[in-house]
Structures are given as C-alpha cells and as structure tokens.
C-alpha cells in the first residue's frame, strides 16, 4: 500500500509523525508492505493530518487523522469514518487556480524526478535558450508584482540588476515570512523546494548573478531542513548549472529582518538595522553589489511564467493585480489554510464562503489583512476586491496575503495596543518615529483604556508622525492596524472612566 502523509509543519504540529509511526506499526503487525511518502500539505489545515491512500482510481483522503483511525486504513476504505473522497475532487481543491502551488501536496518534495514529471524545470530550460533581456521582458510582461508586501513589479527590479555594472551579483530570497497569518512561503519551501530553486536559477540567468541566498527565519525548522537538502540535491544533479551556487541562511528571530535592507545587513553578519534608500539594493545590495531581493512566492511564480508564457499568467487577475495569489486564511476560521486563486475575489467571498466564517461559530467582527502592519476591516468593507490598489483604496494593504479572522469577542482596543507593542518590541531602533513612537503609542492607548478620551487626537497625531517620518514600513505602517481599529470600531475605544476603574 502507498500512503501520503505530509511533512508540512502544520501537519506535524497536529500529529503527523505519530500517524506515520502508527501506520508503520500497523503494517508490520499485519505483515503488509507499505510505502509512506512525505508530501507537502494540500493547504486544508483543518483536515490535517490529511492522509492519502493511493488507489486505482486516484488518491483518497482521510482526515483529520488520529492514531486511533489508522487501523481502519487497512480495512474497507469506503466505510472509514474519516473518509473524504478523492482529494482532487474536494471543493476547496477544485475552486482553486494552482499555478505557483501546482505541485505542493502532490509530489514528494525531495524527488527531482517527480518534480520534472509534474512540469518542473521546463521554465528554466526555456530561459536557458533566451538572452537576459528576453527573460526580463517575459517576467515584466507577466505583470508579476512582489508578493512580499510592497507589490513592486518583479521584472523592473530584475532589469535594474541585470543592467547594473558589478563584479558579483546576488539573488537573495526573502524567506523571513514574519507576518502573522502567513505561511505560503513555508508551505512552498516544505512542499516544493525545487520550484523556488528553479525560480532563483532563472533570476540568476536574467541578472547575471553567480550566488543565491535563501534567508529563512529560524522559526521554520522544517523548511530549513527541506531547503538545505533540496539545494544539495539540485547542486548534485547539476540543476543550478555552472553559473549559480546557492546557500541557505537562517535568521535569528528579528521581525524587522524581513525588511530587505535589514535582511541584507543581517546576511552580512551585522545588526539587522534598516538602511536608508537610496542606494537601492538593486544597485548596492549584499556587500555593496547589485542584488535582487525577492519574496519566496515572487521567485516561485517565475517557473510557471517561463514555462507557460507571460500571457497565461497575466490573463488571471484584476486591474493591476495580475496572476494568482495564495490566500492564507488564518485565525478564527472554520476552514483555514492556503487557497490559491486569481486576484479579484471580494473579502466577503473569501471570509464567508471559502473560510466558512469563524471556527467558534460566532459572527465575524473584523478581518486583519496583510499581517501585523495591515488594517482591520469591518464587515462593511467586505465588498472590497482582493487586489493591491483596491485594498490601498480602503486604507489597507494586502501585504503577503494573510487574513486573520476575529469573532465578536475580539476587543479592538487591545488589538490596536498590540500593534504598537509589537512595533516597540521589533523596532530596529534606527529611526525615532518608530523607536519612540511605538512606546508612546502603547502609553496613549493605555490612557484610552482608562477612559481618557482626550488621548484620541494624540493617538491620531502620533500615527501621522509615524506614517510620515519612519524609515521603513514597520513604523510607517503600524498606524494601519491602529487607525483602522479606531475608525471602524469606535465603541471599543469609548471606555467609561468608571468601568475602567
């Protein structure tokens, strides 16, 4: 018998290792030969550990699986209490457009043969037959914008690096993924590491870079292990080619190191303080050399763009948000996980239909979109289509496309206070509006909590100063969650003095 049991962190955190041990023990008790493939996750986190059994008609899913459910996998599968049916046929899977995540959950992440059999390396082969400018043009035409948060066009960044003079050029993959509610980078690295490697190899060709780094946060031990192994296998198989070598680097628990210039300082072995721009990293990045810094999903979307052509990718999406986006549905969600689709679904469709509302069954109060620097959106904004400009128009951002759902028990004053507290803890300390502003922000919100409503204009003013005066988006965007909470949920800020005392 052949089983698939994810090695993905979420599956492991919900008991996948125990399930694997139980499958092996049960098989040996019954004298049945089994093969257990450790795949990535399909993204249906509420069903993890999701075990798949290979049958003549396809892969049958069972989940969420416990050790007690394992013996039943060796009996009549049709009557197993956790049987879900064919995984590919589940509504969550069928509703998606999986371009970047096409192979995640499907293949053995460390099998290059399976990677190739499922369309891998086709993009790199095509790029190898093109000149630099043509590769850059293809990526530009696809409309791909940076998935790390800022949404800068990837092709334009590559063009700058490609044309910049420099003795050495670098491709740096930003796998710091520090935002709460985001796990797409992690799932991609754990479930299809060769896809990221291929994307970096193409970036190397396009820019004339000789060295690639993947900077992975230390909170991701599984991703670090899988990526390191995949780089070793790719190097052995000659996939990286003669021109590019790659190295995995591990962060050290600083959120701000996801900011690209802070990340470069960290890679160089320095404190992760933000650098003033200009100079752009594209011109003077790692060790002062021209450097591409791209998010995992930006780079991992390049192979399919090169394999299927820019138009195929660009034809999905809405307005200036082209292609697909892996939504990460988190927090108090009935169905939480990763859902890749074209840009353009409304927030309401995502929250009410795909996520199925809250896990607690209570009404949705707010959805924070874009991580800790993103705004809290009330139900009245649920008609907002998912796109860069559309969310900016609502004083928000899509960031790395994480969504945190809160039910009606959430207290928005506490959420605003946390945003300021987080900024104070994680500030790199280089600029005053962020370093001092965040501390004052916590104090000011505490005044509000004590019923001192005269602090509201002070908080508003402070947010303006942080927004306009901070060196990077840590201090600059912390006002988004704070001001959105204050604007959309004023009742939570109107505390009476008596109640507070």
């Amino acid at each position, binding site marked *: 018998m052949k089983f698939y049991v994810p090695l993905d962190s979420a599956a492991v955190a919900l008991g996948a290792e125990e399930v694997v041990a139980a499958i092996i023990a049960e098989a040996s008790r019954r004298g049945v030969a089994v093969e257990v493939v450790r795949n990535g996750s399909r993204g249906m986190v509420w069903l993890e550990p999701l075990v798949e059994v290979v049958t003549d008609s396809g892969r049958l899913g069972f989940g969420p699986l416990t050790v007690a459910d394992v013996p039943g996998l060796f009996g009549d599968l049709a009557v197993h209490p956790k049987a879900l049916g064919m995984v590919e046929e589940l509504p969550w899977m069928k509703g998606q457009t999986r371009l970047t995540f096409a192979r995640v959950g499907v293949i053995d992440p460390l099998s290059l043969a399976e990677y190739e059999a499922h369309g891998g390396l086709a993009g790199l082969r095509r790029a190898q037959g093109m000149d630099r400018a043509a590769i850059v043009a293809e990526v530009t035409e696809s409309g791909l914008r940076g998935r790390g948060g800022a949404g800068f066009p990837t092709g334009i960044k590559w063009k700058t690096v490609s044309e910049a003079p420099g003795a050495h050029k670098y491709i740096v993959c930003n796998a710091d993924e520090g935002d*709460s509610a985001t796990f797409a980078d992690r799932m991609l690295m754990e479930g299809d590491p060769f896809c990221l490697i291929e994307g970096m190899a193409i970036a190397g060709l396009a820019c004339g870079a000789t060295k690639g780094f993947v900077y992975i946060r230390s909170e991701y031990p599984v991703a670090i292990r899988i990526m390191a192994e995949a780089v070793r296998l790719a190097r052995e198989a000659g996939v990286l080619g003669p021109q590019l070598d790659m190295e995995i680097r591990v962060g050290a*628990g600083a959120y701000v190191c996801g900011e690209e210039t802070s990340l470069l300082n960290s890679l*160089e072995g320095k404190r992760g303080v933000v650098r003033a721009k200009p100079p752009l990293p594209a011109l003077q990045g790692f060790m002062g050399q021209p450097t591409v810094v791209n998010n995992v999903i930006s780079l991992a979307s390049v192979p399919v763009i090169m394999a299927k052509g820019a138009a195929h990718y660009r034809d999905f999406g809405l307005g200036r948000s082209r292609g697909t986006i892996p939504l990460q549905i988190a*927090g108090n969600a009935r169905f939480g996980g990763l859902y890749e689709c074209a840009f353009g679904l409304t927030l309401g469709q995502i929250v009410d239909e795909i996520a199925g509302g809250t896990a607690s069954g209570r009404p949705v109060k707010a959805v924070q979109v874009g991580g800790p620097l993103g705004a809290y959106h009330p139900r009245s904004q649920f008609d907002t289509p998912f796109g860069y400009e559309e969310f900016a128009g609502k004083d928000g951002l899509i960031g790395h496309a994480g969504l945190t759902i809160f039910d009606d028990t959430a207290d928005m004053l506490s959420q605003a206070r946390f945003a300021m507290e987080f900024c104070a803890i994680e500030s790199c300390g280089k600029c005053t509006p962020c370093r001092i502003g965040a501390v004052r922000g916590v104090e000011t919100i505490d005044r509000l909590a004590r019923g001192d409503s005269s602090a509201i204009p002070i908080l508003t003013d402070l947010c303006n100063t942080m927004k306009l005066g901070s060196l990077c988006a840590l201090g600059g965007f912390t006002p988004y969650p704070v001001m959105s909470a204050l604007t959309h949920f004023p009742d939570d800020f109107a505390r009476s003095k008596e109640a507070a005392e």
Partner: protein
Amino acid sequence: MLDSAVTADRIAEILEAHRGLEGPLLPILHAVQAAFGHVPQSAVPQIAKALSLSKAEVHGVISFYHDFREAPAGRHVLKLCRAEACQAMGADRVAGAVKAALGIDWHETTPDGRVTLEPVFCLGLCACGPAAMVDGRLVGRCDEGIVAEVAK
C-alpha cells in the same frame, strides 16, 4: 561551568568550519549556541578576533537578535505564539494560564531550572493556533495542558 579550554577549542573548530563564508557571523553564532545552549561571554573576543571585528560589534549583533542567549536556558524551552492569528484563537488566555501554572513571566525560567518561557511572534501555524514550540517540537491548537509536556 564550562571548561574554558574545551570551550575555546570547540569555538575554534566552529570558526574554522565557517571560513570562506560571506558574512559568516550569524551562522557562527547559531553554531556556537547549538553547541553550548547559549553564546558564552568568552566566545565574544575569540569570534571578534577571528573576524577582525571589535568585541562591541560582536556583542551588538548578539544582543540585537532575540534568538541568541547570553546565559543558558532551562532544561526545557517553551515558546508560545503571541501574534494576531493565535490571539484570535485564545492565545492570550492560554499564555496567562501557562504563566500562572509555571509561576513565571515571559523570558523567565522556573526557579528549579526546569522551564524557560519565551514569546514567539508566529510559527507559521496560523490556521491551527494557538501555536507552540516545545524544545523545537511544533504543537498546534495548544491549550494550558502543554505545561504537562515540560513537567519532567
């Protein structure tokens, strides 16, 4: 107590193993912490000398990053996620209960040296929160029962 000669030898080995890397300080510090459970004071001048940095620069890097500790942790390290998606699933309540059960606050170690409690801001388990990490092992949908796992 760490034997200082043994420590110096092990650090020398680590420094040697990282020769030729571009920007080697973080990988070196990770390796030192993996070997000793923390970055011993005595490592600072040795690393500084090998990389032609000042002691203050090395110290500045160690103190910047939340991961590096200058003193050993307890026998178990319990990290609880404090970030928004876990908050939405009751992480604050779980943290409160864990702190009460252990009798310590964030960044503290129980007096018997058994557990160190650390906050973490996201483990990428945001669709199955509250999330935790116990001695490097990931746990999803955790509750105060997690204290039992570090009871030994």
